[in-house]
């Protein structure tokens, strides 16, 4: 025990004396949280949409009034008057406009005659996000035009009433779970991967191996120290990230306890995984080369950025065995849903089991000699 704790003491003294590891492990997830959270979370504003009116009738004026009202109030787009459909198409193609609304000749007559009136929308579908946002906005404008001014006594259309369980979740809040997991992964990758191999290459482990420390004490000491460092990174990012994203869970004791338990489980799982990957590595270049690959392979399939349900089958298979998936699911359950202990039970079980299993495999692989 004394020998195991000596390894832990050494690692933690180094860690606190040189806090670069903790700072470095938090920089990338924090930057990602702030940049991606703001970049992906917003709605389209001030898109330039041209209006070509070949009708000029009463119904065309109604369309333009509604169009102008969106431009003035929601500001999804600004209206640009155009005289020629061909020119408007060319302007969309060259990027001068983001879309063009065409009101064809005879539009008012067709509306009044109930003769399948049509409005045209020219969009630049090379930008899927912009085109689908404008399409959705225009569709709601068309729906409003279709609504009769006076509602009939009996409504025959089926209406879906949506009940949202939680207040609107901004993308930054959605991303926080992944960012905490990422910070812990970076901490483990640097503290448990790169520094471990660097120590090996510098001959530090040779110094340990000539002492009577046992294989188990050395493995447990290195992993316990790695897990403590990952816990500290996880706690720090949870606090900073929650404050940045405007989440108040860190002020609720029960949720704080759940978070603490999940952070410990994630630390053990990540650390065990990293130790297993690094246990036979000698070359300091290997963990550096693996960093990006593992990051992509584990972080992106975890559902932290995009829902797992949208993945193809093979990617879902990765997500099932990826400890990141359970970390992200658990953090989302606590941070966004307040789902209670029951919501994270399965995640905790998987993460603890994964951590113990990887350590059980890694320990016999750890060489007590050079």
């Amino acid at each position, binding site marked *: 025990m*004394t020998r195991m704790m*000596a390894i832990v003491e050494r690692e933690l003294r180094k860690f606190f004396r040189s806090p670069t590891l903790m700072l470095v492990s938090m920089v990338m997830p924090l930057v990602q949280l702030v940049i991606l959270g703001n970049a992906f979370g917003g709605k389209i504003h001030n898109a330039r949409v041209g209006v070509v009116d070949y009708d000029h009738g009463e119904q065309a004026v109604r369309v333009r009034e509604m169009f102008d009202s969106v431009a003035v109030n929601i500001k999804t787009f600004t209206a640009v008057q155009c005289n020629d459909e061909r020119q408007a198409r060319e302007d969309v193609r060259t990027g001068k406009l983001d879309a063009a609304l065409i009101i064809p000749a005879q539009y008012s007559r067709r509306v009044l005659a109930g003769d399948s009136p049509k409005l045209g929308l020219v969009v630049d579908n090379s930008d899927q996000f912009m085109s689908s946002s404008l399409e959705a906005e225009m569709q709601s404008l068309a729906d409003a035009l279709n609504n009769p001014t006076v509602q009939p006594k009996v409504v025959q259309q089926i209406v879906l009433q949506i009940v949202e369980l939680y207040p609107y979740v901004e993308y930054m809040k959605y991303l926080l779970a992944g960012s905490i997991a990422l910070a812990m992964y970076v901490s483990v990758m640097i503290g448990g991967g790169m520094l471990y191999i660097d120590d090996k290459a510098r001959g530090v482990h040779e110094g340990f191996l*000539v002492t*009577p420390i046992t294989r188990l004490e050395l493995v447990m000491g290195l992993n316990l120290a790695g897990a403590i460092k990952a816990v500290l990174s996880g706690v720090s990012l949870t606090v900073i990230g929650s404050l940045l994203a405007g989440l108040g869970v860190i002020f609720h004791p029960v949720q704080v306890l759940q978070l603490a338990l999940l952070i410990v489980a994630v630390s053990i799982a990540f650390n065990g995984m990293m130790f297993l990957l690094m246990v036979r590595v*000698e070359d300091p270049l290997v963990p550096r080369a693996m960093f990006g690959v593992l990051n992509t392979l584990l972080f992106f399939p975890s559902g932290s950025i995009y829902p797992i349900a949208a993945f193809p089958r093979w990617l879902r298979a990765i997500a099932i065995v990826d400890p990141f998936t359970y970390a992200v699911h658990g953090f989302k359950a606590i941070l966004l849903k307040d789902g209670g202990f029951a919501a994270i039970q399965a995640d905790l079980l998987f993460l603890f089991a994964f951590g113990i299993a990887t350590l059980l495999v890694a320990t016999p692989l750890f060489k007590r000699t050079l």
Partner: protein
Amino acid sequence: MTTHKSDPRYAGIAIAVENIVKRYGDFEAVSDVSFQVKEGEIFGLLGPNGAGKSTLIRMMTTLIPATSGRAIIAGHDVAKEPDTVRRAIGVIPQALTSDVDLTVEENLSIYAKLYEVPKAQREKNIEELLEAVDLLKWRDAQTKTLSGGMRRRLEIARGLIHNPQIFFLDEPTTGLDPVSRVAVWEMLDKLRGSRELTMLITTHYMDEADHLCDRIAIVDHGKLVALDTPIALKASVPGNSVVEVQFARDAGEWRERLESLEGLTSVEPQSMGSYRLHTENGPQTTASLVELAADKGGVIKSLSVQNTTLDDVFVHYTGRQLRDEQVKAPLFQMPPRPGMST
């Protein structure tokens, strides 16, 4: 527990290496080496980079298993009782491996804990060792602020933190400036005087081996080629003096002329018209040489007479200069530590 302490063959023997072999695939890094080190002795393993010194030391210190043969350290078989051996030995690896972010005292304290030295004893040992290696006033300094020589002294203290019986030092002065090297030698001399310690030192510095070691084993290409006291090794080289001469012009004609001189045991051509002459009588050979040069109209650029050194011993036993070997890339790299010499 298999102990050889009661075995009369090992009475007074700290280290016994018996027919030890280490193979990596087809390459034999250490070939059938045997030697014994007496208790209290300073024993040197001398050889160029890649000779197999570090492989030998690593087999003796439990770091790598031997392919065949055995090593008995402090009466215990390394292969059968590695933990007992580890408690009996202190090891200073070739590389400087102290934690640069930790203080001098923290480095010592952590190693004392790895050896499970009780708290009171730990504090006493740290105090004594810091004084012995002259780092008492640096105890709270971070190791990164120390010079190379001070770091090496710290590592020596670290290796002694648990009061071992046998101390292994793998090239303890490599990379140090001449002043620091001498300081390390003095410290090892002092430690030897104050503790009942057996030391095994690997080095490729002749002067270091000559200065520190009671006995020296010359290792080359994994084989032990000579073993004796420095004096006996020097005496074993034919000719007890070496005359070094350099001629201003030489197209190879001087070798034959020099070989005609009386009392010479060998003539070694060096570069640029230089020769090393091994002789029984240095002054007489010098006088004859000057006379010969005057006779043949040769111009002597430099001339010196010296006693036989370990350099000569190494050349005698291996057929080449140790310093020449130093600058060549080693033929074989130790697999566990790529880039480090063996």
